[in-house]
């Protein structure tokens, strides 16, 4: 029985029609492909519109179409649209094929004759192929209602709380001993100048005590297997060397510990902590961790002061790392950012000149709970600066370092200006290329800082030096910059320089992405599904990215994204099951000779070997239809639905117009 094929050629406005003669293609299909079974060929301005879809539905019902070819844009965009239309009309959605004559033809050719001929070939290929298509049914699998949130910064916390409040269980995994992320390091937040800890810690406590949240701090994800609705995750809970059941968080161990170490993480290298420590007073959870690399006991075998003084005997030097295996249905990645290493910009002297500070260092200086109790002082620990220069765009918007804009540094620079004024009364200069204060109440904040008397110089600072040229400059840090608005080079002596350093993807973002099966952009941020319309989803179903892991952004945006991801996750959970594409591989066991060549290839662990029958078998639930085993099987015993030999050969024959004009042998 020959199939009854309907061909629909889309103009896509002038996107396709501007280069391809779509009317000609439709007429040609009706005339020349009649032998293949084409009984109707139409062209329409916008096939994806509801009217366009109705055309297809009507023809299916009235003409009894058994196959449909839509020649339009890439399947990425509208395959689902047309498949749904077919389904609504009663035709199995997998009997619909998309022929891309936009991305593959009109967008890459300018010669109309060539483009039209190519479009015809593409349509011919699609028609030949669709005839070989088989009707397939989606496989439904249940969704595990648990969720994994990786990263306990503000975005991760927000996401976890929303899902937990909806009544579903969340595992919140955090690499550091406490949740809170970078926001816990800040002093005040712009533009409201809310104390960062004051607005963050209530959320932290909520997350820490929520009955639906399992908090796993000082832990890392080591392996992810499975697919949306059914992820199997392995988490390494690193040894704290503290028994959490017995520890009361009294803090005596920290007090008594004799080993002081520079705190590179929380105090940004400006302060100290002990070898056994909680990173900050409001840490959640409140259990300390022991830093094995610096603990005297682990190095030399002596001390054990913490153990001696612990009132509940909670110190456990023999504690081992624990491996946990959990099953979740969805995963939210909220792994945050790293600060740009300002030592790379050697002309700013960070690391060489003592009184040059980075943004995180300044936050710690300014913070009342910081190493200087909130006093803004120079590197000597005591002198209050009388003049401060704040440099914007350090390591950002710069082809020598990071090409992109880090979004928050202008507001951050203004915030620093305000704080310095408030605390020290010093003269403050801000050096900028452009003032980027775009969001709600941001430009008003700029106005406020202007009112306070900060001196703004429009110019990217060329260098910070201590080579004085005259008495005025002696003993100071001299900022050399072109004041572009005044049109001349200026040398401005200051006591302290603050670098508004840019944000960077985490150093291990690529490896983390690989583990979860998502990709990173050229700059290293995780790639979202669509930059405009789907910023929290990824190309991998069930994995979401929120906060700075997706790209530099401020706190309100991070919170919004965290909530957005939660909505998507809840949507999936409430549907109870997810429909899997039926594009799968399967083994014809009569042909399988048990050579095991395919056994090691499956990235989804869907292949198993049945010893008794000495043949291979594929689990359709785990199989993602990637096609690796189909290609590899030397006996041709594995076929992939949707990509069979017959379909591919038919498509090639169609493209070559084989069935229309015989090739001269």
């Amino acid at each position, binding site marked *: 029985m020959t199939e009854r094929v309907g061909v629909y050629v889309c103009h896509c406005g002038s996107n396709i029609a501007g280069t391809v003669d779509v009317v000609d293609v439709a007429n040609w299909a009706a005339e020349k492909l009649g032998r293949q079974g084409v009984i109707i060929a139409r062209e329409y301005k916008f096939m994806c519109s509801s009217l366009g879809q109705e055309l297809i539905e009507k023809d299916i019902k009235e003409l009894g179409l058994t196959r449909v070819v839509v020649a339009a844009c890439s399947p990425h965009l509208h395959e689902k649209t047309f498949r749904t239309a077919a389904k609504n009309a009663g035709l199995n959605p997998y009997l619909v094929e998309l022929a891309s004559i936009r991305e593959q033809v009109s967008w890459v050719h300018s010669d109309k004759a060539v483009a039209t001929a190519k479009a015809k070939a593409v349509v011919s290929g699609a028609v030949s192929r669709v005839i070989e298509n088989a009707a397939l049914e989606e496989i439904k699998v249940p969704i595990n209602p648990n969720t994994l949130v990786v990263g306990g910064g503000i975005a991760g916390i927000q996401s976890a709380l929303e899902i937990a409040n909806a009544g579903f269980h969340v595992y919140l995994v955090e690499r550091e001993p406490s949740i809170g992320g970078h926001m816990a390091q800040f002093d005040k937040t712009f533009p409201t100048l809310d104390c960062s800890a004051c607005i963050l810690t209530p959320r932290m406590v909520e997350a820490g005590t929520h009955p639906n949240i399992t908090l796993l701090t000082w832990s890392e994800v080591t392996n992810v297997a499975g697919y949306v609705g059914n992820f199997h995750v392995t988490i390494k809970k690193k040894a704290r060397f503290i028994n959490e059941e017995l520890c009361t968080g009294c803090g005596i161990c920290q007090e008594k510990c004799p080993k002081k170490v*520079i705190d590179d993480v929380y105090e940004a*290298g*400006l302060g100290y902590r002990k070898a056994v420590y909680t990173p900050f007073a409001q840490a959640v959870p409140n259990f300390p961790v022991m830093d094995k690399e610096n603990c005297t006991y682990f190095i030399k075998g002596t001390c054990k002061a913490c153990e001696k003084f612990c009132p509940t005997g909670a110190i456990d030097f023999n504690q081992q790392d624990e491996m946990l295996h959990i099953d979740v249905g969805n995963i939210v990645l909220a792994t945050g950012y790293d600060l740009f*290493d300002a*030592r*790379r910009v*050697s*002309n700013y002297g*960070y*690391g*060489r000149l*003592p009184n040059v500070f980075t943004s995180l260092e300044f936050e710690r200086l300014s913070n009342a709970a910081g*190493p*200087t109790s909130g006093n803004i*002082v*120079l*590197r*000597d*620990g*005591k002198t209050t600066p009388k003049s401060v220069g704040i440099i914007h*765009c350090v390591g950002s*918007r*710069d*082809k*020598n370092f990071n090409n992109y804009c880090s979004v928050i540094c202008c507001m951050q620079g203004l915030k620093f200006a305000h704080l310095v004024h408030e605390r020290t009364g010093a003269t403050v200069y801000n050096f900028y*290329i452009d003032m980027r204060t775009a969001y709600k109440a941001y430009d008003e904040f700029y106005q406020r800082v202007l009112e306070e008397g900060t001196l703004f110089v*429009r*110019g*990217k*600072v*060329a*260098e910070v*030096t*201590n*080579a*004085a*040229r005259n008495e005025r400059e002696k003993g100071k840090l001299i900022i*050399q*910059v*072109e*004041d*572009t608005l005044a*049109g*001349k*080079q200026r040398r401005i002596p200051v006591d302290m320089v603050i670098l508004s350093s840019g944000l960077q993807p985490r150093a291990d973002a690529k490896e983390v992405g690989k583990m979860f099966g998502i990709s990173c952009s050229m700059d290293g941020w995780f790639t979202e599904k669509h930059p405009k319309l789907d910023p929290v989803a990824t190309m991998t179903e069930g994995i979401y990215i929120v906060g700075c892991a997706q790209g530099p952004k401020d706190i309100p945006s991070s919170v919004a994204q965290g909530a957005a991801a939660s909505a998507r996750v809840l949507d999936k959970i409430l549907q109870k099951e997810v429909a899997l594409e039926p594009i799968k591989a399967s083994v014809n066991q009569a042909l399988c000779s048990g050579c095991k060549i395919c056994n090691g290839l499956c990235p989804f662990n869907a292949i198993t070997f049945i010893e008794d029958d000495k043949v291979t078998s594929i689990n359709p639930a785990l199989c993602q239809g990637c096609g690796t085993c189909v290609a590899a099987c030397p006996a041709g015993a594995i076929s992939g639905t949707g990509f069979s030999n017959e379909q591919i050969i038919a498509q090639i024959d169609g493209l070559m117009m084989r069935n229309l004009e015989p090739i001269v042998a």
Partner: protein
Amino acid sequence: MPQMTDERVRAGMTREEDLSLLNEVSMKTAGVSHLEMCIQCGTCGGSCPVAADMDHTPRMLFAMLRAGMREEVLRSNTPWLCVSCYHCVVRCPQEVHIADVMYTLKGMAIHAKLYTDSTAPHFSQTFVGMVETFGRGYELGLATRHYLRHFPLRLPGMMPMGFGHDLEGAYGDRAEKNQTHGSIDEDPGPRQGIGVDLMNKYLLYPGCSMDSSAKAYMESLNSIVEPLDLHLEEIEDWNCCGATEYLGINLIPAYSLIARNLALASKQMDSGTRTVVAPCSACYLNLAKADYYMQERPTLGAKVNEALAAGGLEYKAGTLDVRHLIDVLVYDVGLDAIRKAVTHPLSGLKVVPYMGCMLPRPDYQHRWSDHEHPTELDDLLRALGADVIDYPLTTSCCGGHMTQIGPETAFELIHRLVSDADERGAQMMVTVCPMCQMNIDAYQNEMNHFFGTNFHMPILFFTQLMGLAFGKAPNEVGIGVELVSSRNALAHIGVEVPVTQEPAAPRKKDEGLPMPRRWTKHEGKKEAVK
């Protein structure tokens, strides 16, 4: 490149503004200029050491360029004041080839005769004339002709320097093609039982100064090749690299002039090496830059090879490895070998290392530890046992040819360097570049007069100190010919003092906040300091 300018001009859509100016300047610049990418951030204007003397900051000049203000741009003194220290180039966030655009503007200004002060263009033309006649620069003749034309009153004061140039040596050898220099091998064979190690073999491009104003550099280099088992084979019939003068006249002849040396060197590669070493920073920069631009912009490479073909030569960009002498000493020979060869450590001698600007920048081949504060010279001097003082101006420009063209500007730059070194307690400055040495040495007197100061800061070549450390006598390494005498400074190292390691100071209580660790570009990759 933006296509709009040509079409718009032709369509008559432009009026007084000459929007084709940007395109024209871009086309005429070596490499890919990226001029259209300028975001007017002002880094260039902020970095420029001579910005205060310029009519327009570089940034402003580019804004005018893009606005099509042709006459104002070409009349501006800005390109003429550019000392090509490349600070702007390495810092520009949009990778605009600023210094090379300045060269283009110089050429266009000469062509359109729109310069206001003729000192600089005339100097360039004199230089070019000299090179085209003799093939190599002849500083005495050049200076004489130039000063007679523009600064006659300065001539008497320049006499000591003239005599210091050793007339006979300089002009007399010009006719000879193959210059041989003492122990530098032309035909290396086994020496003293040690087989020739092709690893230590290099093609030497001496550069014009080594015969005249930097004779001491040459002599001291000769004295250290043996202890370090270095084999330098001079490139036959090499010509002047064009310094900074030729680049401002005309693009293709300038690069062909440089590339001729590369072509000649590539013919000598079968002696076992493809590395060209140049002791002079400007020569090094020119050779390295030409090789890089010929690769970056194949049309430049093709045109240059067309010119070279007229002389039966050709050069395929990328064939040779161009390096500076100090690069070879620190990274190939290695600080360990140097330390081993030291018999008379320079302990007690307080030096500041002055790398100069053209060495660590623009560094297209990524050889240096840092663009701003490289540590190669510091480390090498430490290996000799000297007391190295941290010198923030180690790569700030000495003024280059401004001593010839705009002396006051040059004196300001020299003053900054010398006074800062003095401020930090240095007994001498040590450098790697003949131009830097000459400027700071020969013009220190005039600078002192200009500022009413009384500095006496000797400046020697690092190879001279190496020679001393290897046990050579001062006269063997050209010490004594410098105008600002190093006698007093060297008196400090007359006695051998054993070097002791200071124990790490115990951490004091009130020491202030901790500093982040010291870091350089090659952190982890190259460990120059042991």
